């Protein structure tokens, strides 16, 4: 029972981060049917900037805000100069290459600026020694903080999308960009906003994961985005609760397989899950089947 609870909590915590990354991917998918394949590098850059600024004596909160501000600027650049031009050609997948390219350039820049070695990431909210005992199991407060923060972000995000004018505008753009433009919705601003929000979610995810691992290096984030993608497909592309659920299912399954079957099979699990869901339920757990009338 103790093992089960330990694995469950670790799975939920890691899965919640996958969920956040998945929501970030969903956001841009809604508005432009594109995804930022450089999302992993955004996570890395945010975490590396935060670690570096804190090491230079900045207050933690200020360092995080500054890193997130850099991410906002970066996402504006990404959307304006790598995604928007690619979308001018109908049916082009150029955005996939250009966003991936930005990610690779960011990795190179991070190696140049901060060095290519792993740098220590400080404890942001709690440290590894902070834990509480629940049902006789030592539960890490770092894990709990990650889960609570991820849930809070999802709730806030859902409230914004469902309860605000900007949220409704975003949904309108998601349904039909041309019609949204005709009725006066600033489509370009909405698309840009979706990229910024997606980058911010990636940045926060990067900070959350880095404080658990304790180190961050320029190659950080790449694998996490793949798991985030699996979570998005598993939950149903475009569904926020689905993304979170998909992330948690992937995270918990990984831990359970690793803990009870084989630690070597742990990583392949997410991909097995991806193949299975695409075969059995392509629209994902929470997605709706898309019907095109001819």
């Amino acid at each position, binding site marked *: 029972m103790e*093992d089960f609870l*330990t*694995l469950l909590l*670790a799975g939920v915590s*890691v899965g919640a981060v996958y969920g956040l990354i998945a929501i970030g991917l969903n956001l841009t998918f809604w508005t432009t049917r594109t995804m930022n394949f450089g999302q992993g590098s955004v996570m890395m850059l945010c975490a590396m900037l935060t670690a570096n600024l804190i090491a230079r004596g900045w207050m933690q909160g200020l360092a995080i805000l500054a890193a997130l501000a850099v991410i906002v600027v970066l996402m504006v650049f990404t959307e304006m100069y790598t995604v928007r031009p690619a979308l001018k050609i109908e049916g082009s997948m150029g955005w996939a290459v250009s966003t991936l390219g930005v990610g690779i350039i960011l990795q190179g820049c991070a*190696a140049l600026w901060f060095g*290519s*070695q*792993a*740098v*220590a990431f400080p404890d942001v909210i709690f440290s*590894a*020694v902070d*834990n509480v005992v629940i049902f006789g199991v*030592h539960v*890490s407060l*770092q*894990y709990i903080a990650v889960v609570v923060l991820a849930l809070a972000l999802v709730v806030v995000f859902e409230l914004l999308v469902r309860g605000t004018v900007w949220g409704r505008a975003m949904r309108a753009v998601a349904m039909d960009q041309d019609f949204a433009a005709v009725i006066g919705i600033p489509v370009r601003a909405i698309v840009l906003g979706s990229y910024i929000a997606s980058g911010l979610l990636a940045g926060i995810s990067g900070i959350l*994961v880095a404080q*658990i*691992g*304790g*180190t961050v*290096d*320029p*190659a*950080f984030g790449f*694998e*996490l985005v793949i798991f985030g993608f699996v979570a998005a497909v598993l939950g149903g592309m475009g569904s926020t609760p689905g993304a979170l659920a998909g992330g948690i299912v992937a995270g918990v399954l*990984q*831990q359970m*397989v*690793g*803990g009870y079957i084989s*630690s*070597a099979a*742990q*990583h392949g699990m997410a991909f097995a899950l991806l193949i299975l869901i695409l075969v059995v339920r392509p629209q994902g757990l929470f997605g709706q089947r898309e019907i095109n009338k001819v």
Partner: protein
Amino acid sequence: MTLKRRELLSFTGAAAAGGTLGFARRARAADPIKVGFTTALTGPFNEFGEGYKRGIEIAIEKINKAGGVLGRPIEIGVMLDDQLIPDRSVQNMRRILDDKSIVGLFCPSGSGPTLAVIDMIAADGRPTMNPQAQTPTVIYPNGPGGKPRPNVYTFSIQNDIEANFMATLLAKKFTRIGLLNESTGYGKTGSELIKAGIAAANKDAVVTNESYNQKDQDMTAQLVRVQRARSEALMVVGLGADMAVIRKNMTRMNMTIPFFTSAGGLSPPYVEGAGDLAAGTKGSQFKKISTVPPAPETKEFLDAYKAKYGADRLWGTDPEVPTPSMGGTVATGYDGMLVMADAIRRAGTTEAAAVIKAMDATKGFLGCNCAYEFTPEKHHAIEIGDLTTYEFVKKDGRMTLVPTAI
């Protein structure tokens, strides 16, 4: 005596040719002796490549200051970066091997890249020093105890030597042992050898072996399996940054069993990542490099390093005594270069077969890590007696490695 015209012409031609050859011989005598290597000069593991490059450079400065070898200076002819990626090592090594002016070679950092190029090197036949790769098959293709590759010599701690050392110590004290390894050649062979060593030393011992991928951010599943097996100690075969993730994970799970690492783990990235949690971690490393006071040959190297780079990250946190991992990151390159130069000097030529013959006759060459001795059957030098156990202790506000007993 009169010379016929044909005889005169041939005499003049021979004299001219002799003169030219003599001139060419003199020019070659002044030509530098070149060495070449590909290693991780950048990338997440560049402490290894950058470290051994520094070691080679310091050795070359020492040799050239003393007049070079055979009256010729030594220089690095080709130095390429592979970031510890095997594919790049192969491309780079091909380029190096195509340069026939290179006299001696150094293997890349790490077992993966070295195993990827070692057959090319063996086929080429030029004398090659292996500063860091630990997998025994780099040197002995049929396993330890077999015949070595004729032209490859290792200066690193071979996995089998380290495994025997750690296995014997662990088996003496614990009967249930958790063993974690990274899923690389270094990790896999290391853990296989430790398992075999523990079984040989204590037939009642139970070993729970799990693996992880380099850069994994969470090791809960592996640690739960080790915990469920009621392991009394955990030994990890891996590198520093991953070791920090494991140590933090153990703390989160309130796992307080003794923690041991391979030589690769007792390194600066581990302390940087784990911070104070590193305290109490034990592992094996080179003995001689951190011995106080240092032997004269070690002191000469340490003084040269400190004058050039200061007590930097590779040196460690104690400005007076270098961290033992420096024996593997920097000193193996230094020792390798010195031993190769000594063999060329004894061979009296840079011709590969003669240098290899001289390498095989190396005896009692005092280096920073041990007294080097190679024979046609034995191409490794570091033995169990050249290692010792260390423990991370917080001293004067900084984490330092001190010799300890398990």
